[in-house]
């Protein structure tokens, strides 16, 4: 009886120590904060061996990416040593963890990849059911399998496979491929809606940005968004005008739809109605310098011109409140004269951290409503 009590006490102690060490790793921070402690905790967990693998994975939830990297590294060190010494990983526990979609997508993927080293057949068992998985990596694999099916099928079978694949696709290359196949087959695909681009804006400008001096200047729209107002602009009086796009990727092209005012800046505003208070991502693409405000709060600013652009160029975490949220963008053009430095445009979409579109709340989804924006 005494032996059992000692064993239980020892197990509790081990578990407590393990939890303490994981907490130490989870508290590691930027600027090297907590590094020495995290290193010692990681060493201790490595010494504990494979019994620490699952707790390490579970700790990913709620951890920063930086802390997750410490957890990942500790996990890999243990798993690597286990496999190289001829041991085995706790397959059943890891498999169950992979299937638990409430756990961290990154941790589930990590467990899956280590399982695959010994059990490659798991790919066929797991991936087909992961088309709507919270992990973009699992979704990508599931979509790829469906694309292979679609490419070898014909007629309605092919279309059905592509349609199914589209349900899970969150990456641009896959969506492009699917949309082309479906459109070639005569189907309609709304890429803009699929990705959650905001297509309807009101813009005002140009304001002066000669010699790139306008970036720090707070012109009137930064203080108040009054859609009825008229201001002194760079070339005369300016007022808000609607600007929308049918572009697949939601590009609002100031240079082409209005004019490529050199050495200027424009403001663009729209609203997004959120069903609840929630943390989402605004994903912006623009080759121009920019500032972004949400509900009057400056979220990020970046003074870089013509170093390329692409979809999801900037992933900006935002906290939205239930109801209408006001978005304001400042987009700046400089005076470079090279042919590759003439673009003056932006695209912005709203999605979750996996890249899946989060459409605005349906009761306000109509375009050109009373506020003039979507």
């Amino acid at each position, binding site marked *: 009886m005494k032996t059992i009590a000692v064993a239980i006490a020892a197990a509790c102690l081990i578990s407590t120590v393990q939890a303490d060490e994981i907490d130490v790793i989870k508290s590691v921070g930027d600027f090297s904060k907590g590094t020495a402690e995290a290193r010692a905790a990681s060493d201790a967990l490595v010494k504990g061996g494979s019994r620490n693998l699952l707790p390490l994975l579970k700790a990913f939830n709620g951890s920063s990416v930086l802390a997750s990297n410490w957890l990942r590294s500790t996990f890999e060190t243990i798993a690597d040593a286990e496999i190289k010494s001829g041991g085995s990983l706790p397959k059943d526990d890891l498999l169950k963890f992979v299937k638990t979609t409430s756990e961290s997508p990154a941790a589930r993927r990590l467990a899956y990849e280590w399982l695959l080293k010994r059990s490659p057949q798991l790919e066929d068992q797991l991936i087909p059911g992961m088309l709507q998985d919270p992990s973009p*990596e699992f979704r990508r694999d599931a979509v790829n399998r469906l694309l292979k099916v679609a490419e070898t099928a014909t007629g309605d079978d092919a279309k059905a496979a592509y349609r199914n694949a589209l349900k899970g696709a969150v990456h641009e290359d896959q969506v492009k491929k699917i949309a082309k196949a479906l459109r070639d087959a005569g189907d309609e695909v709304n890429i803009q809606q699929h990705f959650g681009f905001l297509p309807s804006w009101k813009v005002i400008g140009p304001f002066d940005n000669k010699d790139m001096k306008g970036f720090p200047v707070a012109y009137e729209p930064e203080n108040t968004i009054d859609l009825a107002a008229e201001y002194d602009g760079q070339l005369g009086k300016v007022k808000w005008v609607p600007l929308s796009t049918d572009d697949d990727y939601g590009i609002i092209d100031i240079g082409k739809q209005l004019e490529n005012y050199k050495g200027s800046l424009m403001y663009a505003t729209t609203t997004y109605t959120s069903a609840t208070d929630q943390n989402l991502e605004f994903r912006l693409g623009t080759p121009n310098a920019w500032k972004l405000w949400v509900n009057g709060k400056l979220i990020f600013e*970046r003074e*870089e011109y013509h170093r390329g652009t692409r979809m999801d160029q900037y992933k900006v975490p935002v906290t939205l409140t239930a109801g209408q949220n006001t978005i304001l963008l400042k987009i700046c053009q400089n005076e470079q004269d090279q042919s590759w430095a003439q673009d003056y445009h932006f695209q912005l979409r709203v999605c979750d951290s996996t890249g899946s579109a989060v459409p605005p709340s349906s009761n306000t989804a109509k375009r050109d409503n009373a506020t003039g924006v979507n």
Partner: protein
Amino acid sequence: MKRLSLILAFLTTASSTQAEDWRQFRGNQGNSIATGENLPTELSGGSIAWKVELPGRGVSSPIAVKDQILLTASSGYDEDRLHVMSFDAATGELQWDRQFQATGRTGCHEKMCVATPTPASDGERVFAFYSSNDLICTDMAGNLQWYRGLGAEYPNASNSLGMSSSLIVIGTTVVAQVESDAEAFAIGVDTVSGETKWKIDRPRKANWTSPTIMPASGNTPALALLQSSAGLAAVDPETGDVVWEFGDGASTIPSSSVIDGTVFIPSNGLTTVKPAADGKSVEQVWNSSNLSPSTPSPVVLNGLTFTVNSAGALSAGSIETGERVWQLRLKGPFSGTPVVSNGHLFFFNEKGLAFVVKPSADKGEIVSELDLGETILCSPAASNNALFIRSDGHLWKFAEQF
């Protein structure tokens, strides 16, 4: 007479680096010279000691520490999976592959990738750096020692085309240049703790060059040379204090090289400077508009300096005067800087064509050519009589046949 002095210089100039290890970008001294090595000058299928597959993508160069070849890669749709890998130099066997998730931006021009900067080592640790500005330190067994997410700490210090500046290690400091249009700084990080020793503002302008080393001389300790569009700054690696500056502007792509106390700067073509007697300033030796380098950095062998232009023409110039003395047409374009060893220059062009060039005082000769058939943008590494090169897909070792 001038020709005679060139020939004498060619015959007598000795390089200053010992290089069994190749611990950072362009070698231990950052000048691409592999002294004491006997690299295979006849490149062929038979000189390939091994070839191994790599994950994801990578433009970074391999480094060599004792019997390990260290390399980085980036994988995943967003290239946000960062790899630090170690291979057995003798067999090519993968010893370990540690993976991390990028904390900073991973967007790049398609020619580049997140794993573009070359890692560095102090012999006990590996320091890996990425376009996302993740700075990772592991020990030689792959155990994480510290992690700095410079992309998260300074989110505006990024370039939408990608960042490529490699690391250098001087003493107990890892030096990184993180320079973009939106924010620019250089940072000295303690090799053991990962803590910041110093951080200095740099010209706010996109910059893809790498820091290099001014070796210690007399009472002057080794300095970190930081290049930018403004010129070149020599920085004390312990404090970040600027010791001297060259302010005539410089390229933002090819980097400077230091050979025997002379700094070869890609500036207004090619410019050489030497520190003044007080060590607080530099004096220009010569400038040559005929020796302008494109992406590869300048190198030196036997009294001649070599640059490659965007058309793939190799130019040789006198290190005494900057006078261009001959040119040789190679098949470009080149991104990587050649390795200099056993009297030869070892080039790899972007299409995967390898050239071994034997230069003499008045001409250059291609003595060997091999098509690897894959895009190669990195600079080769040399260690223990072997040459190492990587493409996105593979890592090769070349050595003399037994």
